[in-house]
């Protein structure tokens, strides 16, 4: 009979209408901003820089290697390297970023900077309420705004952060083992040991100091070895 299809459809909308008062499957929206849906663990919005110490600027893991700047598809990262070096989390002397800016109005949250970073230093934040009245400057964030603690990272991405911490722990263990070996070697013969340490230092990854790594004193501070 003509019209049955329409009536069937109306019945369906009536069911949905009645259901929207009591059935959670029909009631899918929440009243933002009073109510919020919990963020997914994998969720990503914009990048931030991880730091390990109390003072965010001293503990930045970033060594200004500029890989993320190069790989970023829309070119929204801008880094200026430091002239001097300072000890990183495992006591190795590294450069650090004097300027680290991300233009969030250009960033497309693709996470490629996180994937290419060899130092576990840039990660994705879940903060999304970034509205700003300044169209350009307000979304151009510097390293002070970008720096967030490792605890924050552990809070927003627990399992990812655990993997990252484990990877760093392995690195630290390696560095300590090497430092120990170096000290023992030093005790044997000072002159020979120095040559060996130089060779070992030369074999360490990007940004390593070509001269003595000073492994026994990790807290030398940033002013310890001015770069040539």
């Amino acid at each position: 009979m003509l019209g049955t299809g329409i009536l069937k459809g109306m019945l369906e909308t009536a069911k949905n209408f009645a259901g929207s008062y009591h059935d959670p499957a029909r009631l899918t929206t929440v009243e933002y901003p009073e109510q919020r849906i919990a963020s997914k663990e994998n969720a990503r919005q914009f990048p931030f820089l991880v730091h390990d110490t109390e003072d965010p600027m001293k503990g930045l893991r970033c060594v200004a290697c500029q890989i993320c700047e190069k790989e970023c598809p829309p070119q929204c990262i801008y880094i200026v390297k430091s002239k001097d070096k300072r000890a990183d989390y495992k006591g190795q002397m590294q450069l650090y970023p004097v300027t680290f800016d991300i233009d969030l109005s250009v960033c497309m949250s693709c996470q490629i900077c996180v994937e290419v970073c060899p130092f576990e230093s840039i990660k994705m934040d879940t903060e999304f309420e970034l509205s700003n009245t300044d169209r350009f400057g307000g979304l151009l964030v510097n390293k002070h705004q970008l720096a967030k603690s490792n605890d924050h990272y552990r809070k927003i991405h627990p399992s990812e952060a655990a993997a990252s911490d484990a990877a760093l722990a392995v690195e630290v263990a390696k560095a300590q083992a090497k430092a120990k070996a170096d000290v023992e070697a030093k005790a044997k013969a000072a002159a020979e040991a120095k040559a060996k340490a130089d060779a070992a230092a030369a074999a360490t990854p990007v940004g390593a100091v070509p001269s003595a790594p000073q492994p026994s004193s990790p807290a030398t501070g940033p002013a310890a070895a001015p770069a040539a």
Partner: protein
Amino acid sequence: MDAPANRTVQSVGQGREGELLEVAMGPQHPSTHGVFRMDVVLDGETVVKLKPVFGYLHRNHEKIAENTSYLGSMPYTDRLDYFCSLSNNWAYALSVEKLAGLQVPERAEYIRLITAELTRVLNHTCLAGFLLQDMGALGTPLMYAFREREKILDLIESLTGARMMCNYMRFGGCRCDLPPGWLDEAKKVVAEYPKFLDEFDALLSGNEILMARTQGVGKLSAELAISAGITGPMLRASGVDYDLRKVDNYGIYSRYPFRVPLGDHGDVYDRYMIRMLEMRESLKILEPALNDIPDGPVVDPKAKLRGFRPKPGEAYGRIESPKGELGFHLISDGSPNPYRYRVRPPSLINLTILEDMCLGQTIADAVITLGSVDIVLGEVDR
């Protein structure tokens, strides 16, 4: 011009009987699915000429890709057809894998199949909603469709980290493994989805108004469809059995039996029904695939993330994206950036015969004919 005192109010069209009227529909028009323009010449309400105008969203995606590394183009492919970023990712990854000869681990193949089929369900759900919206069923079907779409988007977000701009596939696999509990969630969504399809069918598929409005409208013959390179559900609605999942056997589609729905008339109603049926077939693939997925790595350990330089050569890879055949033609000269990067956009090519389908019909039918083509302007304009 006459002095104001001599002017009288005239009704629109007075003294203009038999004259043609030229209307620019768009670029800001709710029924053009984005910034798309149709220059329509009307005789009364009948379309006598229709010229599509593109380029309002043109950003020269291909040029950008030629200035970016192979990996750097991956997030840009998300933005082609922003409903189906995962199948775009797959098409691009597949082409680069052809170009560089990379192998994909078993588990990654399963994840790709699952995500691509979820994307197909998601796209067809939205399309059904939009098409009904174009027909004047304001709101209700679209909101029902979006409610279900949200469930799949939640799955995609917990897997890839983003709802729409997933950037998930990598050359030789996928970016990360499934999070714990994801498969159970996905099984739940897939198991409950037929209920929604039944509801949607009860709501609309038998609706007399819908039938009267769509049957016999926007007809496309099989010969013209083949010649015009129409692909996807639109081609199959015209009765041509050509589904790349069967023809090319890419991925692991050969392991799962599914049927390819075909239409008889090639009209708007057939295109709508093909999509409703395809969703059910996709769910038939998803159900066993979610159970069969093996353990293992999700990315080929030999695949390099940085410093990826395929040897000189070229490759054309294509997949059956929800909208049709999505292909990437890549030419490498051995440098880190592609020498030539070409997207074969199904949305654009499916619009080739828009004029043929709309001529002689009323302007309101042109709107639903365009709706049934299923375009996304991010892909049309690139």
